[in-house]
């Protein structure tokens, strides 16, 4: 085996895995607090990517800079989705929870199509084509930045959940819903805020991807799937697990290139997924079930 190639793939896997982790963090947060799977996750991220794209094209502000503004915009979107749709279905049987979120994704995807058309948009950002060479191994500058920022944002979110009152309430609701209600926490507001935060997180991840990947309304599904797999790997609702799961998926996908065509990569991910839910449903990094 070509060791330089393997090393190259490993590094690329880790770098992308960090962003996967950030996308999945939002999904895991939403699941942890409300117990629903956000089937519109990828679509929400794509909305963030479009926001970032337009800010760059119209105002010339780099996606890395506009990230906070974009997260704020998508926070509002997430808050609205929770307020309008998800809050009303929390007590439904699980089968009924699936459809409204799938439909939300369908709506977002087609709004993007109506507004911005089906074109693949790929802006030339300042660092879009920069790379750093370390011997035979190339490191993509925009990926390094994406990875570092993903880790940083994850850290900030943990800090937020640990230190602020809102954060503590979210964790309380996540640990024990009924208990949170009993001690007088306004769970509806927590829910709205959590969904907003989850959406904002994934939108931030989207911004990091803008310099790396072209945007179109139809790219969302693959990211929803990737986020699913990561969340299962890391354990549903387990936030540090999401980041770790992201790295595992990133590396597994990247290294599988050595032996499999890319069209079969997802077979590896899904097989991994089945094994995990059968034998370690608490995730790779969770404690006892």
């Amino acid at each position, binding site marked *: 085996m*070509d060791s*330089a*190639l393997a090393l*190259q*793939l490993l590094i*690329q*896997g880790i770098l*992308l895995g960090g962003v996967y982790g950030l996308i999945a963090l939002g999904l895991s947060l939403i699941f942890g607090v409300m117990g629903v799977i956000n089937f519109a996750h990828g679509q929400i991220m794509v909305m963030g990517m479009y926001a970032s794209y337009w800010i760059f094209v119209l105002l010339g502000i780099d996606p890395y800079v506009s990230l906070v503004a974009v997260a704020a915009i998508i926070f509002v979107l997430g808050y609205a989705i929770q307020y309008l749709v998800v809050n009303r279905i929390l007590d439904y049987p699980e089968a009924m929870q699936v459809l409204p979120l799938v439909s939300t994704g369908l709506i977002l995807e*087609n709004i993007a*199509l109506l507004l911005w*058309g*089906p*074109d*693949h948009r*790929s*802006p*030339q950002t300042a660092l*879009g*084509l920069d*790379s750093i060479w370390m011997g035979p191994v*190339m490191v*993509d500058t925009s*990926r390094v930045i994406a990875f570092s920022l993903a880790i940083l944002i994850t850290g900030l979110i943990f800090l937020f959940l640990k230190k602020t009152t809102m954060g503590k309430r979210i964790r309380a609701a996540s640990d024990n819903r009924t208990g949170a209600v009993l001690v007088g926490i306004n769970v509806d507001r927590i829910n709205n805020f959590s969904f907003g935060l989850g959406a904002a997180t994934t939108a931030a991840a989207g911004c990091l*991807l803008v310099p*790396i*990947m*072209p945007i*179109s309304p*139809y*790219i969302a599904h*693959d*990211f929803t799937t990737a986020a699913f797999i990561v969340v299962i790997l890391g354990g549903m609702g387990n936030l540090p697990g999401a980041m770790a799961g992201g790295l595992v998926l990133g590396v597994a*996908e*990247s290294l599988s*290139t*050595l032996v499999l*065509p*890319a*069209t079969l990569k*997802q077979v590896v991910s899904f097989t991994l997924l089945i094994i995990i839910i059968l034998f370690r449903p608490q995730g790779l990094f969770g404690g006892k079930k």
Partner: protein
Amino acid sequence: MDYKTMKQNSIDRRTFLKLSGAAGIGIAASTFGVPSFLHAAPETIKIGSIQPVTGPLAIIGQGTRLGNQLAVEYINANGGIKSMGGAKIELLLGDSESKPEVGRQEADRLIKEGASILLGPFQSDVAMAIATLAEQRQVPFVMDVAALDDITKKGYEHVFRIFITSGGLVAGALKYYKTLIEISGVTPATAVVANVGDAFGKGMSDGFLKMLESSGLPIKIVERIQYPLGIQDLSAEVAKIKAAKPDILFPVSRPGDSVILLRELYKQKVSLMGIFGPGSPGWYEPDFVKDMDKLAYHTLVNVPWINPSSPSYQRGNAAFQKAVGKNLDTNSAYAYTGPLVIADALERAGSTKREAILKALRETNFKDHPVVGGPVKFDEKGDNTGAMTALIQVQPDPDLQKRVKIVLPKEFAQSDKIVFPAPQLWER
């Protein structure tokens, strides 16, 4: 768009009233009855256009639909179908959503709404579904774009194709590749094939590889990369390409993944003599040429292509520019050709009867079209014997619009030089 069609319809109605008035005079003047062309003239002739206007191929489908529409506008503005008393063509619109079953259902709806001919649909799978329906319902179906050989292999009586077949596309690729080696005097020894994993990508690259193998050219395929449609990251695949150290890359991609592929080739400094697309969208579209700038230079692609010097192209392009500010590209130009071929057949058929239309289509010999190739003629399978490809190369030019140039065949060429081997991506 709605407004425009409404306006046209009202004009149509007025013209029709005038015509019927004239017919009234005719009856008064002649006891033998009205001249036949007034008698037979329908108000409009309906053509059903099915394109993938939503779904993953919407970007192309919206262009092909517009191509259909603009050609119909042109025909109507020039007096409609003269042999049928200047009957106007009305285009009924359908959306396949890029799905075969939806395409079939939409085609059925358009037939119900009175379409005497179907037109479309860009994708081979949708084309197949509609072709079977056309045969079931006995309605002529003219494919403007759809390449897969199998569609016409079934021997359907009602199916005609203006576009080149995948077999023709592959043959063109090999022909130009050989010419390229002769002209440049450089023979690449190793190659990587990178194709998107869909019907087009796999069929195209399999066919090309098979032909390459039997051609006896001294070239070794050192790696074959296959990636899913809509992939967002090719960094791992490009690392693998780099490790294989090929002289030349044969991509079969779609718009979108070509951008990812090219950027990664640049970042990872993969050295190549050049990139040769045996039939690959994604390397010459205006947005790509603009966004990729120098990186887009020198890529060679074998494609069914527009013929910019033809009057038909200039007319169509002007209309297209006016409508959306973009140039007519291959797909929309073939879509523009569709109604022209149909109108030509209707003119000779003089009626919307199925047998007459089929007969006229079979006898088609249509030269005034906007694409590279001979006159449109249909063989017994319904394939266009005049269809051919061109080899194009993106070359430096201060005018973005003029960067994509036909380099082969000579009679259509816009540039007499072919850059091969090309300078490395990072040395431009």
